[in-house]
């Protein structure tokens, strides 16, 4: 215990140190140094529960290190490094602090061995990450950030409630494999599901990520959702429902991605689709499929960051990331274009790129275990993701119709970050061995077989053929300046309108009702006053003695009651 410490604290210390440094290269360098040091520590950690704090009879485990938590922590440190390198030019203290604290929280959550520690870091990722959206400093970004924060904090509150109920049921706060059944476990499952962008709970992702800053989106894309994938893999492996949830997740975002205009939102949809593959892997729950989930999360963080970086670089140079405004940029931003294509090939799972060697583990697991329909859906989703991420993103940004924009190539540090990420994508694809060695279980899988390579190439090239044919015949829907309604419409439009109209009707009914009662009561009072008031007809015949008689009757009644009882 003496020689180790929670890796997350390294990031928090880095954030404190950041404030002591002057703005400029020193801060940017610190932002790079912290993830590198953290990566080395994570690499050399032994397995076990390394840092326990006793708190009110509860053991808080800050450092539960095993193969599953290590691979996620490792990729998180790598993602933090690449994101910070990409953001070398940023001089905004808020964003720099948020990036460090956010990465630290995510890594802390991955190493959390109990539900209370997990809760603290879980909320930590929510609160720190929202600043990457607010840092855009526009009214729209402010409102989007508030929506994002409500959803994220809501997920944390559910987690805490679930943890409390779980503790009452089982007497333990340990964060291990759970079975769905009690309310406590359901709440925890739901909390994970919100952060993992389950269908119908997904929209915070597509709403918020494109609203963040150029560099903020790159950082955001790595942590929150993959933390949720990790939490599901830890807490609910083999939960059959996850297979179907995951299959739906791979499916519906691709339709939205085809018609979405904002390329960063297209990427957010495809991020959602990729999470679906990981969730299916968790649901199947075999060693092969869980390996697939971990490997896919690792590869996915890299190529997704690369895609967000390349579109971000375009935004940085042109001021827009919309397909309808872009096109023809390959002439002046050729390197960015090439990196984008490498990211696109990786997400599409082309042989020799990272997605190929990770996604196939999940697909194989689905077909080996007899989930044929799910397998067919995943295959469709693979073709679909190639269609909208693999082709659409590079095509509409860098080729398509010439927008007339001739921006300068991305700045050097962005090119470096993209180059490094692209290198990793290809390296993992060509030499999957080192990644396979890191996976939670021993791997007995050969991705490069003739059948696999040929069938995958057939799937992809014929998808490309479909794109080409549709494009050339003019059937392919053009990029239009528009927004598309998604489930967020229910809480951004439908609910306010419903609540508004219901409250309008209710307040009118209430006003009419109270108005009616008041006039009636006033009329009664007026009539009584008219007849019984001092000026009224009844008052004329009031003998003064009538009061005395009534008092006598009352006293007599009291006497009788007293006597009888």
């Amino acid at each position, binding site marked *: 215990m003496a020689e180790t410490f929670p890796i997350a604290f390294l990031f928090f210390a880095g954030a404190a140190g950041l404030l002591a440094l002057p703005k400029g290269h020193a801060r940017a360098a610190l932002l790079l140094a912290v993830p590198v040091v953290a990566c080395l520590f994570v690499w050399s950690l032994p397995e076990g529960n390394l840092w326990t704090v006793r708190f009110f009879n509860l053991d808080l485990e800050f450092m539960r290190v095993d193969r599953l938590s290590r691979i996620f922590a490792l990729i998180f440190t790598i993602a933090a490094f690449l994101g910070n390198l990409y953001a070398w030019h940023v001089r905004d203290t808020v964003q720099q602090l948020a990036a460090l604290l956010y990465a630290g929280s995510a890594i802390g959550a991955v190493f959390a061995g109990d539900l209370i520690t997990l809760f603290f870091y879980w909320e930590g990722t929510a609160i720190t990450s929202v600043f990457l959206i607010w840092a855009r400093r526009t009214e729209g970004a402010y409102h989007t950030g508030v929506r994002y924060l409500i959803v994220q904090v809501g997920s944390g509150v559910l987690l805490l409630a679930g943890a409390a109920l779980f503790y009452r049921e089982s007497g333990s706060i340990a964060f291990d494999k759970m079975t769905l059944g009690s309310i406590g476990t359901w709440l925890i499952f739901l909390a994970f599901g919100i952060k993992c962008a389950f269908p119908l709970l997904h929209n915070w992702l597509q709403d918020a990520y494109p609203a963040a800053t150029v560099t903020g989106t790159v950082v955001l894309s790595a942590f929150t959702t993959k933390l949720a994938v990790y939490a599901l893999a830890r807490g609910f492996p083999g939960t059959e429902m996850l297979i179907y949830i995951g299959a739906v997740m791979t499916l519906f975002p691709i339709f939205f991605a085809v018609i979405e205009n904002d390329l960063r939102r297209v990427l957010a949809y495809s991020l959602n689709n990729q999470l679906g593959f990981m969730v299916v892997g968790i649901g199947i729950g075999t060693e092969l499929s869980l390996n697939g989930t971990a490997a896919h999360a690792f590869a996915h963080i890299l190529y997704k960051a690369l895609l967000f970086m390349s579109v971000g670089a375009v935004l940085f140079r042109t001021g827009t990331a919309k397909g309808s405004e872009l096109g023809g940029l390959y002439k002046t931003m050729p390197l960015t274009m090439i990196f984008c294509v490498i990211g696109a090939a990786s997400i599409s799972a082309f042989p020799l790129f990272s997605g190929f060697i990770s996604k196939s583990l999940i697909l194989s697991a689905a077909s080996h275990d007899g989930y044929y329909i799910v397998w067919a859906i995943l295959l469709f989703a693979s073709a679909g993701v190639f269609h909208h991420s693999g082709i659409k993103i590079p095509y509409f940004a860098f080729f398509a119709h010439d927008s007339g924009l001739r921006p300068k190539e991305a700045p050097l540090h962005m090119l470096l970050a993209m180059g490094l990420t692209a290198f990793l994508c290809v390296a993992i694809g060509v030499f999957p061995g080192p990644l396979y060695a890191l996976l939670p279980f021993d791997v007995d899988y050969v991705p490069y077989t003739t059948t696999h390579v040929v069938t995958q190439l*057939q799937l992809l*090239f014929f998808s490309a053929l*479909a794109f080409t044919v549709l494009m050339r015949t003019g059937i392919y829907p053009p990029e239009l300046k528009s927004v598309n309604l998604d489930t967020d419409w229910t809480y951004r439009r439908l609910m306010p309108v419903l609540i508004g109209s219901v409250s309008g009707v209710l307040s009118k009914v209430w006003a009419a009702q109270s108005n009616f009662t008041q006039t009636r009561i006033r009329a009664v009072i007026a009539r009584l006053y008219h007849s019984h008031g001092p000026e009224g007809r009844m008052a004329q015949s009031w003998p003064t003695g009538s009061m005395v008689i009534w008092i006598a009757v009352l006293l007599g009644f009291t006497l009788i009651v007293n006597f009888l009882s």
Partner: protein
Amino acid sequence: MSIDQNDKPEDLPTLGRALLWLDTKKNVDRIVYGLYIVCAILFTADFLYHKHVYLGVEEFPGFYALYGFFMCAALVISAKIMRLFLKRPEDYYAPYDVESEKYPEDQLERKTHDG
């Protein structure tokens, strides 16, 4: 941002200049024909080797090719139909949304390639 349709090749970065041949329609057509040929080769490849597969449906010649092609076409067409119901103007949620806002200029480094 300058709009010049007649790029002077000497102003472009080296790599961009090398890629300039994509600018002519004839070369794009060549790529498309290339794609057709690759697809044809991949399709016939199915008859030339022994597939190691788990599912019966995979043994169907050209299954992956046909599945990829038709599912993608279906995807695009259904997305196009979805657009009829789901498309709204860009300022639909404004001002509670970044969609119709300009990206703040002070956070960008807009530059054209020729300075």
